[in-house]
């Protein structure tokens, strides 16, 4: 990167930022070597968008793979040229941070089915020249991990020091441990569980109905036309509530009114309260950056995720790896409550695995792993140091 570019963004850069970064793309699974999907479909070629931060060690033993959550992307840290915001985990990835780029080589890729550079329903199907739309095959969390593993092989990385992720990212971490037990040195699972709870499926159900009931949805064939923005925004608003907690909403908004201090007594006024304004804003911002079909495919993959169902039992799923586990939950997370983490820990003890687990205090609910980054770094950083030490022995 040029000096000029760095200066351009210099007001955004602190000493602990990795600075300007660029997204890279690679095409894998070129026919006839296509990916056989868990649902029976076949897919290829698959383009994967990814970013890397920090130097790869000559021994190639310092790689940390970051699995992003439902609506994340490959841009986990640093700044894109001209961007207003850094990557989604910039406070956690960088020099001296939780994932210290002075020590580790960090890789993050957009998941299969996504809409931020990796092949998904919004991509062009090379066989037809049209968008895949609903013609995109059914995908699972395991399929996402298969693509990530292929990316690692392409990058010449056989073994990962750690795989880390929160929420849907945590599910991918668990699937990595089950699917590629030999390829990971440690697994860090944040605010996740061995399966999506019935409550989680219920929330997805309502969100997905909101999208499919939008007249602009047209069975997913809306590319080049008006998109189902109301449905997608509504799905996001509902989901967003599940990422917060009663305490965090109370803290941030309370019952404060958006304009003035008195009720308007007007039913047509959509945003009387600040929390309403916030949700509407979240919904409309989301529509600008996310594809409704991707949302449907990925939430369905989450619904289907169940380690016990796929691998016999949680203990069987996680029993094959010699990786160290770190399981983190948050006391105000009601989407993936601590009971889900305890189930994982229990299974890992039964499987005689090296497991550490902690419930952290935070008012920020499910989103805590994206917000309370110093608290998380305090746990993750010594864990990674020790893991590196153990593999270098």
């Amino acid at each position: 990167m040029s000096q000029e570019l760095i200066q351009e963004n210099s007001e955004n850069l602190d000493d602990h930022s990795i600075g300007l970064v660029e997204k890279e793309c690679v095409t894998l699974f070129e026919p006839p070597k296509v990916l056989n999907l868990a649902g029976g479909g076949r897919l290829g070629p698959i383009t994967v968008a990814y970013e890397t931060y920090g130097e790869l060690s000559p021994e190639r033993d310092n790689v940390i793979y970051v699995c992003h959550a439902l609506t994340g992307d490959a841009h986990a840290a640093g700044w894109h040229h001209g961007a207003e915001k850094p990557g989604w985990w910039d406070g956690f990835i960088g020099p001296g941070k939780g994932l210290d780029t002075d020590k580790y080589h960090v890789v993050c890729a957009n998941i299969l089915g996504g809409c931020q550079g990796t092949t998904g329903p919004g991509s062009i199907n090379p066989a037809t020249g049209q968008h895949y739309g609903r013609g995109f095959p059914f995908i699972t969390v395991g399929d996402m991990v298969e693509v990530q593993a292929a990316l690692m092989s392409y990058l010449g990385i056989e073994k990962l020091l750690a795989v880390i992720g929160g929420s849907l990212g945590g599910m991918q971490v668990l699937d990595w441990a089950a699917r590629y037990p030999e390829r990971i040195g440690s697994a860090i699972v944040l605010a996740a569980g061995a399966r999506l709870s019935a409550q989680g499926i219920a929330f997805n159900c309502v969100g997905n109905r909101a999208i499919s009931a939008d007249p602009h949805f047209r069975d997913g064939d809306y590319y080049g036309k008006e998109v189902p923005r109301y449905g997608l925004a509504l799905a996001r608003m509902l989901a967003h509530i599940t990422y917060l907690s009663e305490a965090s909403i109370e803290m941030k908004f309370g019952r404060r009114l958006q304009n003035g201090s008195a009720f308007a007594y007007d039913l047509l006024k959509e945003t009387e309260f600040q929390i309403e304004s916030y949700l509407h804003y979240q919904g409309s911002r989301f529509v600008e950056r996310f594809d409704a079909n991707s949302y449907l495919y990925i939430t369905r993959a989450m619904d289907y995720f169940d380690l016990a169902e796929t691998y016999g039992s949680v203990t069987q799923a996680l029993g094959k790896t010699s990786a160290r586990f770190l399981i983190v939950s948050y006391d105000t997370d009601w989407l993936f409550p601590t009971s889900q983490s305890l189930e994982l820990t229990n299974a890992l003890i039964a499987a005689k695995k090296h497991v550490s687990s902690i419930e952290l205090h935070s008012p920020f609910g499910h989103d805590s792993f994206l917000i309370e980054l110093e608290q998380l770094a305090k746990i993750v950083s010594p864990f990674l140091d020790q893991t590196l030490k153990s593999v270098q022995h």
Partner: protein
Amino acid sequence: MAARYRLPDPRNVMTDQVILEQIPQGCRVIDLGCGDGRLMVRIRDERRADVLGIEVDEDQFVKSLAKGLPVIRADLDHGLNIVPSGSFDFSILSQTLQEVRHPKDVLCEMLRIAHQAIVVVPNFGHWKVRRQVILQGRAPVTDSLPYEWHNTPNLHFMSMHDMRELAEELNFRIVTELPIIGGKAVKRAWGANLRAESALYILQGNLDAKEIGRTHSIRPSQPR
């Protein structure tokens, strides 16, 4: 005012040595209230044991983690549901039984999750405690910890005599009873309940009744 009798410090390194001596090579050990993981490191390295720590304090949890130990944050007073039954050879509880709300429940949990329980407790039967209570009319406090009787973590006061009674009531066999005098384990000490500042017990659950008789059970003389 005369110097007060001070109870043994839970962080006492000499107690670690006594516990370590009870643990055979290559077994699975869970340390309840593992603190900074100091004892676990020794058990792992000197006994080539598989270890797991339980610790409630976040800073102590991080210290254990930073030693490369597996550790789980949990409160002993809330039970150990997280640990499957029979997953360890030994469960260890060092100088902590007097601090938990329900010592009976904790002992039962220890023998649910492990084959044998190693428990080190302060002995309130020590002659200095007795003298202090009688002559000064004052309760014992713990050495080198900034606590008074009203804010001490010590919720219960027990003697060796009391421990035996509790083991009997719970139908646990005392495999080993070791009075700790001057920081050292003293087998078959005379007047143990008067002289020991702490005592180490290895307890075994009644589920292992068929094994009784296989291990030599120490029958100490009745305490005074």
